[in-house]
């Protein structure tokens, strides 16, 4: 009886202190250390200035075009760049790298794609842009106005771009382009009432996107 009382007298503070210590340590681990461990950064092969290209060519589709069969070309291949970049244009270091290392050697530029979905996801640009009439910036944001390529952050476990989960560890977003998970697809489809009773809800609907 007396022993228990003695414990009650002295230990409560310690217990709370250690609870708080454990709590704080794990919060630091989960919120600060874990994201640093989980993500790594890579730089693009060289800087790309979207703004300057938009001034020259006018529209996203000039470079990110749809092919005749409706498939989306994505990041341009060297073949398209070469039309203008056979020789060094302007005076930037990046232009020099591009022409000397890639154009002259017919080497494709290994661009890192911020918005590339995992291989298990099938996404049709054609359905959204050509059929749905959506604009590029609705999902991709004001990328056309950027003058520099930000560092490419990727997940060390999955190998995919951080843009898919989003910058926020909690998965919070302000803009559509802050996160590109399946919930985000679903949210937009619900809001816009896209084919709520067809392919996406029927048996086999999984395979529309997860082929």
């Amino acid at each position, binding site marked *: 009886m007396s022993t228990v009382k003695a*414990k009650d007298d002295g230990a409560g503070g310690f217990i709370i202190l250690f609870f708080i210590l454990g709590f704080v340590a794990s*919060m630091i681990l*989960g919120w600060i250390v*874990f994201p640093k461990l*989980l993500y790594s950064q890579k730089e693009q092969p060289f800087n790309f200035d979207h703004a300057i290209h938009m001034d020259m060519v006018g529209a996203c589709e000039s470079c990110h075009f749809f*092919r005749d069969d409706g*498939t989306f070309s994505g990041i341009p291949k060297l073949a398209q760049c070469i039309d203008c970049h056979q020789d060094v244009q302007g005076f930037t270091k990046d232009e020099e790298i591009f022409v000397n290392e890639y154009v002259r050697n017919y080497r494709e530029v290994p661009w890192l794609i911020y918005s590339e979905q995992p291989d298990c996801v099938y996404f049709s640009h054609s359905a959204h842009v050509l059929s749905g009439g959506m604009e590029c910036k609705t999902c991709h944001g004001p990328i056309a106005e950027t003058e520099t390529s930000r560092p490419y952050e990727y997940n060390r*476990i999955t*190998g995919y771009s951080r843009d898919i*989960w989003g910058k926020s560890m909690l998965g919070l977003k302000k803009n559509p382009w802050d996160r590109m998970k399946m919930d985000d697809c679903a949210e937009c489809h619900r809001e816009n009432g896209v084919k709520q009773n067809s392919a996406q809800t029927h048996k086999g609907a999984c395979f529309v996107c997860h082929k």
Partner: protein
Amino acid sequence: MNIARRSFLAFLIGGAAGTALSPLPWKLTDDLSIWTQTWPWTPVPPDGEYSYVNSVCTLCPGGCGITVRKVDNRAVKIEGMAGHPVNDGGICILGASGLQLLYGPRRVKAPMRRVGERGEGKWETISWDEAIAAAAEKLEGIRSAGNPQGVACMVGDRYGTVPSLFERFMTAYGSPNFMSDAAIEDSYRITLNLMHGKNAIPGFDAGNADFVVSFGSGVIEGWGSPVRMFLAHGKWKDENKTLVQVEPRLSNTAAKADKWVAVQPGTEAVLALSMAYVIIKENLYDKSFVAENAAAFEDWRDDEGKTYPGFKTFVLNGFSPADASKVTGVDPSLIVSLARSFAGAEKPLALCGRGKGNTPGSLHEFMAVHALNGLVGAINRPGGVWAIDVPDYVTWPKPGLDEAARAGLEKPRVDGADGGAYPYTESIISGFADGVNSGSAGYGVEALLVSGANPLYTLRDAQAVRKAFDSIGFVVSFSSYMDETAAQADLILPNHTYLERRQDVPAPFGLNMPVIGMSRPVVPPQFDTRQVGDSLMGIARKMGGSVGDAFGWESYEACLKETMGAAWETLEKDGILVKADYAPEGWGEAFNTPSKKFQFFTGAYRHGENKDLMSQMKIEGEAADFPLILIPYDSMRLASGPVADTPFMAKTIEEDVLIHDDVYVQVNPATAASLNLREGKVAELTTPVGKARVRVHLSEGIGEGVIALPTGLGHWANSKYIAGKGVNVNRLMSPVADPVSGLDAAWGIRAKLARA
């Protein structure tokens, strides 16, 4: 102590609470699930522009049209070409997995010269100039030493520009020893030559037949043009047509047939002639065809007045169902009912050539089966056998010959395909090894060129072939792959694979219309390889003189373009040249024999007067020493020609065919019991030419005293995916020369089986 423990627990609980309120567990779960769905080691084609290239598959003589799907510059899938006259969208397992030959591990990536011992696998990579010079110098040396005939050449296919270039090279060089891989097509060609008087290849209007008797032909095991036969087989099923399979073993075709006639191996011709007996005896034959368009049905007399028995006399004198039953093991009443159904059908068709048809077979058997088709008039008509003229578009002027070439070409052939013995046969690849080893031609073979063939694997009696190879000082392989022959070569000048080269592909085997396909580069060459036509022309030009002069073309492509002439544009556009309105010649014009009629009996029989043509082809070995009969069997899952199984195909081999590295030999349970062998037991299989370790698989699908091994296994070169698995049945068999054609007619070999 207590405080410390409780504090520690409090720390852990605090940690757990903190962790739960941090993103760590939730994010980690999500990431791990993504990771498991997209294993980084799963190959995924790169993203890019899709495109399709139409071409022709050359992995077997079938000549299927293929449509290859590409993503940017990488081929990612091979599909059958829709609407193609051979395969109409279908594809076989080998064709579908052809990308593994293009991108797989068995490619020869650059010209190579042997540096170690033969077969040791030590090579040095050399430049094309060095390789061409090495070959030219060696061949020039042999020629100037006065032995041009001592250079031999083996090619895979017989027709088209590439084989013709090799033939031209050999002529200009001065050697008679040009050989092509032999198969049932050769036996059919000789059959049509003798019975129709035509230089023709067979076309089978199989899809339109309504009663098919197959004498061992693996209709769904790769016979003819495999995919075309699958389609025909499907059509028969859909339309309730009848397929009767005559075969000693329950093959897939036999299992799917409406009736399986289990015949004694090697006696198929006797059964065919016994069916003819019933048809003649009961007056069931096509009277108008036999009376008006056929000769030698009745007894006949030659120009000198000598009388010969006709087909009728011959058949009625020795092939009654009762007699045939003793030889074939087939019940006489079954023979009678089979013959009646065959003759009573509207569009009957008889096929022959065992399994896939890789062995030419007994000419007598082909003629017996073709006579059966003749009896019912199934010649050049819907649902029958059509004689299609051999491709004749290669019309180059003859090369100029110098003194050395003329002298060399006068010499006898090493394979024995000339002189009086085999007047109907162009070359006998199976006779080559014997010719070399015995020195029967009177001169030594010093060099061998091999293109599109893999004789060290596909020829029977591998020890003899190996011995012949060992005695040949200089072997050049033009193979795209490190196959068995390339591995034993001294110099390899690798060809592009069929997906990287342009080449004409004439005459898909068994198609009943003349067709030329064009194989086109689907992707650019992946390695430092060269179209074999260009390599050969390079060697010839390097040698110069009349040999170089024989090849005036700038390149192989220029040669191809010139050869195709007006057809070039169509071939470039469509990848195929089809005679759309083709119809077979009517019975009145179809035959070019001396009688201008279908010859039931021909000069071939007179030619072989002193040979026992009507007996069963005897196989090697004596029953006393070797009580069993070993027969080979074919499977779609096992590529048994010059190209070996792809890794994907190797995965599909059934567990009762191959287990780990052991092949199963199929044995009747009664035979196994008499040998004290049980299912799965390891046994030693011995034949007069070799022995091998096998496992026993009991099967009611094979007769007593007969055992069967699959073809296509037992590779030792190629890649680890197929090498070292099972036994090459060609190593255990020995070729038997057909008395008329000289081609390999061995349908089996005597064998014994004992517990190991």
